[in-house]
């Protein structure tokens, strides 16, 4: 709880710091702020508490999710190198402040106990993301991404709100714990039938945010058009927060309405896996491929929603962490390469601009390959264990066909992730040594090392979750 207050104050002070200090200082201060807020988050560990009229609940699960979100924000801030250097990004302090505020929204979404906190948290996160997506003001692609994201985002909010309203009409409460009690104690037949529509509309609203098929159509365009650093932010933080909210609602309070949502959720999960993986195969642009890959990873996560094993929560946390670490590295290398290539080739984000990266930049090539291996789920990386835990949880609940499909689709995934590795190591190309700032390099290696350590000793983190 204190982390939220601290982050809001830090965000405001960040804006003031922008008057006097250059970008470098603000970046370091923002990193410091995030470390402090992570420490404050940890201080609530093992104290299950309700705050502010029972609206905000801190549990160990919510603390773990908030830590993953703040860790992702930490790396995004560490990888932000372009702000303040060119004409377009002349206001670095504002961007860092908005990022801190959006982390507040994300934390609210993982630890709400009242529908309104979910709604306000989602809106803080979304409004911040609309601004950040459009922050490359004179770039038409960024403009287009911003308007698409904005219109789709508010459209989705409408669905979520209509769902919340119908559930309120049926249960007369906005409190998550109250709704859960009412739903478990009343027979579903005696509930008003619009309750089920409400539940489905809430699920649809959140599925839009995690970009599950068939609600994913905005994702590739928005991810491609947004500045890469904010695509990194979207594909890690927004996704983790929305999925955590979805998981808490669906497998928590709507758990007793299992029969209403289980078939749609399976269908959506399988469709997401197929659409995400198959479309990713055909992409020429690494950024677009990563967008489709994030859709397919949403599919794996949605698979777990219905498996009510005790270990499921920790599997989801492990998966989110491994996915975050790998995605952040992939986008970071993409930032460096596309910046280098932007003056040389027409489409700097394509696979072809990665060709021959290993020759003069062995470090970058290694980091990129390890992140690709982790996303593909190759053993000895974190991604393998993430997929393994999810599949075994789902399998032990006798959900056979979706798991088989998921395994097949992760085999398809290997193909397009290896396309990146092949371009880096085997194709011939001319890339000179790319200058990497120290902080950037440290963050890059920290993530890569994290991926490997998690891959070799999964129990190290799994025992904490």
């Amino acid at each position, binding site marked *: 709880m204190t982390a939220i207050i601290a982050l809001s104050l830090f965000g405001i002070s960040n804006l003031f710091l922008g008057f006097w200090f250059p970008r470098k200082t603000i970046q370091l201060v923002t990193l410091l702020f995030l470390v402090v807020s992570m420490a404050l988050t940890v201080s609530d560990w093992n104290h299950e508490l309700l705050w502010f009229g029972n609206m905000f609940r801190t549990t160990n699960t919510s603390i773990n999710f908030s830590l993953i979100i703040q860790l992702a924000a930490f790396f995004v801030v560490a990888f932000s190198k372009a702000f303040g250097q060119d004409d377009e990004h002349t206001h670095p302090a504002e961007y860092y402040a908005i990022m801190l505020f959006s982390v507040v929204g994300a934390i609210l979404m993982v630890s709400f106990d009242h*529908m*309104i906190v979910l*709604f*306000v948290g989602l*809106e803080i996160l979304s*409004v911040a993301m*609309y*601004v950040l997506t*459009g922050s490359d*003001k*004179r770039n*038409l*692609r960024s*403009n*287009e*991404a*911003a*308007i*698409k994201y*904005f*219109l789709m985002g*508010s*459209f989705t*909010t*409408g669905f979520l*709100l*209509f769902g919340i*309203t*119908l559930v*309120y*009409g049926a249960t*007369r409460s*906005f409190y998550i714990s109250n709704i859960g009690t009412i739903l478990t104690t009343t027979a579903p037949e005696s509930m008003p039938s*619009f309750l089920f529509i409400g539940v489905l509309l809430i699920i649809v609203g959140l599925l839009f945010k995690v970009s599950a098929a068939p609600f994913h159509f905005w994702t*590739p*365009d928005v991810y*491609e*058009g947004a500045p890469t650093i904010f695509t990194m932010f979207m594909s890690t933080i927004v996704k983790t927060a929305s999925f955590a909210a979805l998981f808490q609602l669906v497998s928590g309070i709507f758990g007793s309405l299992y029969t209403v949502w289980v078939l749609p959720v399976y269908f959506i999960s399988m469709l997401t896996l197929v659409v995400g993986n198959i479309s990713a195969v055909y992409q020429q642009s690494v950024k677009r491929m990563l967008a489709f890959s994030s859709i397919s990873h949403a599919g794996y996560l949605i698979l777990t929603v219905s498996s009510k094993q005790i270990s499921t929560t920790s599997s989801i946390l492990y998966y989110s962490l491994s996915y975050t670490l790998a995605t952040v590295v992939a986008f970071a290398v993409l930032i460096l390469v596309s910046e280098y290539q932007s003056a040389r080739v027409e489409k700097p984000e394509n696979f072809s601009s990665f060709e021959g990266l290993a020759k003069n930049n062995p470090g970058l090539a290694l980091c990129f390959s390890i992140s690709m291996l982790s996303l593909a789920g190759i053993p000895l990386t974190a991604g393998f264990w993430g997929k393994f835990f999810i599949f075994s949880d789902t399998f032990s609940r006798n959900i056979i066909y979706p798991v088989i499909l998921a395994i097949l689709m992760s085999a398809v995934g290997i193909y397009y992730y290896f396309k990146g590795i092949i371009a880096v190591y085997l194709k011939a190309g001319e890339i000179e040594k790319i200058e990497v700032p120290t902080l950037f390099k440290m963050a890059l290696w920290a993530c890569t090392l994290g991926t490997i350590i998690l891959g070799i000793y999964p129990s190290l983190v799994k025992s904490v979750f």
Partner: protein
Amino acid sequence: MQSIPEIIRTIPLTNYIMLSSALFCIGILGVLTRRNAIIVFMAIELMLNAVNLLLAAFSSYYSDPSGQIFVFFIMAVAAAEVAVGLAIIVMIYRNIQSIDIGVLNKLKN
């Protein structure tokens, strides 16, 4: 005993749900069929107002003020969204002199 307003005695709650559903679907129709960004945006406002009306109806029928408080929050959030949304639309108009979202198709390869 306090008197119950006549409307609550004579009009069943179902009517309000239907009215709001109809308003909500008109909003969806607008979002899906129009291309002018500002009109799409107005259709989204219609959807939010359908939600507001339904919340107020539930709140009055159940005598529970939290529903009406939720409406305030939706209004506040809508205001914030409008500010950002119109800023995005102004930004786009500066660049392409149009607000037809069909013109923006750079990303569709």
